[in-house]
């Protein structure tokens, strides 16, 4: 079975090609959009980067898995199984994505631990979050943040950092995982952590979250006052 590649960007493609990795593609006589590859009928082959929405000409070769010899694009139809469907790419793509997610999660966890409360500077965590969204999707971001949150629930700084980083997004962008994440963080015993989650909900300003705000358990007068302030604005 050929090795599939998940190409993050064109540099990645060039690097992998230079490393003599096997690359799978559909027959050049068929057009197929493959998670970022658009292989045209006309040579040279064209790769399409779904993130940047740019195309570029590339030379794409198949390396035989038996003798590792380079097979030119012209010969690729011969003895070549072209029955793989688009879904087959997604199966292997998910392995690649999992590796990338794991890498981002590791980096993000470190940055969130050093979450900077200073309003002047965009924290490294927020920059990394933007990168995840631009490279992958909000759904992947949700996957990463939920995982970090569960594994670090005993670290208030990380939870506050997650909440603060999500304030800049609209609820539409992060729904439904965003609300689920805030609900889980609201259960934390540290009322500062709760306040950060409420602040994120406040920024989303969605009336559907009123029932959540009205049922938060807290003891501090300041937090009760803050929740009342947020509710009074949402109820208008």
């Amino acid at each position, binding site marked *: 079975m050929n090795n599939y590649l998940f190409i993050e960007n064109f540099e990645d493609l060039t690097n992998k090609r230079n490393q003599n990795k096997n690359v799978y593609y559909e027959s050049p006589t068929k057009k197929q959009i493959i998670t970022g590859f658009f292989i045209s009928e006309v040579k040279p082959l064209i790769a399409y980067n779904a993130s940047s929405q740019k195309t570029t000409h590339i030379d794409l070769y198949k390396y035989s898995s038996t003798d590792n010899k380079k097979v030119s694009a012209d010969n690729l139809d011969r003895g070549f199984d072209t029955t793989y469907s688009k879904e087959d790419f997604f199966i292997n793509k998910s392995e690649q994505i999992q590796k990338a997610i794991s890498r981002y999660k590791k980096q993000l966890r470190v940055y969130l631990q050093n979450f900077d*409360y*200073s*309003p*002047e*500077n*965009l924290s490294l965590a*927020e*920059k990394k979050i*933007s990168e995840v969204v631009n490279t992958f999707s909000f759904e992947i971001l949700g996957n990463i943040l939920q995982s970090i949150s569960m594994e670090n629930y005993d670290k208030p700084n990380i939870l506050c950092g997650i909440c603060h980083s999500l*304030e*800049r997004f609209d609820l539409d962008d992060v729904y439904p995982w965003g609300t689920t994440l805030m609900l889980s963080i609201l259960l934390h015993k540290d009322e*500062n952590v709760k*306040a950060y989650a*409420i*602040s994120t909900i*406040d*920024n989303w*300003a969605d009336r559907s979250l009123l029932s959540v705000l009205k049922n938060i358990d807290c003891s*501090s*007068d*300041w*937090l009760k*006052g*803050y929740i009342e*302030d947020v509710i009074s*604005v949402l109820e208008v």
Partner: protein
Amino acid sequence: MYYIRKLTKPFNFNKIKCIKSVDDIDSDIIKQELSTKQNTLSFWKCEKLEHIKETIKAIILSTSEISKSKFIMLDSNIIKEYELEVDESNKGKTGYKGYDDLHIDICNLTYKKLGTILNAYKKVFEDDQNTCEYQKDDIKELILEVIQQGLLDIDNLNESLKKDIIKLTEKNNITIEK
């Protein structure tokens, strides 16, 4: 004359208001709300409250994100009462063209004077009339107003705010004039 500053976190208003004595305030609040540079604290002035929108625009275009914002307004009587020194010589960095001279510094700050400012905050917060609040959508509207007036200085924006504003203009099919 009013001197206006954005709170880092709106809930710090509640924390400062509810505490019995500022002596017991969390040290994180001092870092978040009274973070000084060269012993100065930035504020933005507003001659009359009828023109407060202009000052608010200058402030929000000097920050790093579009988010719900709460502001404290210290009037000149408070500045006098607490013997705070004001320096108007430094222009602020804001993406609101022509309004960088609204910036002022409360200067020559010491440990004692920071405590004084915190007490001033507490006094002001006990009277809600000297604070104002803008929801995230209101902030977006103010930014769009600035853009439509042709007064956005995109080169003077914080990088992350710039990205948020570009996203906002794309959503609203607006072009930023350079």
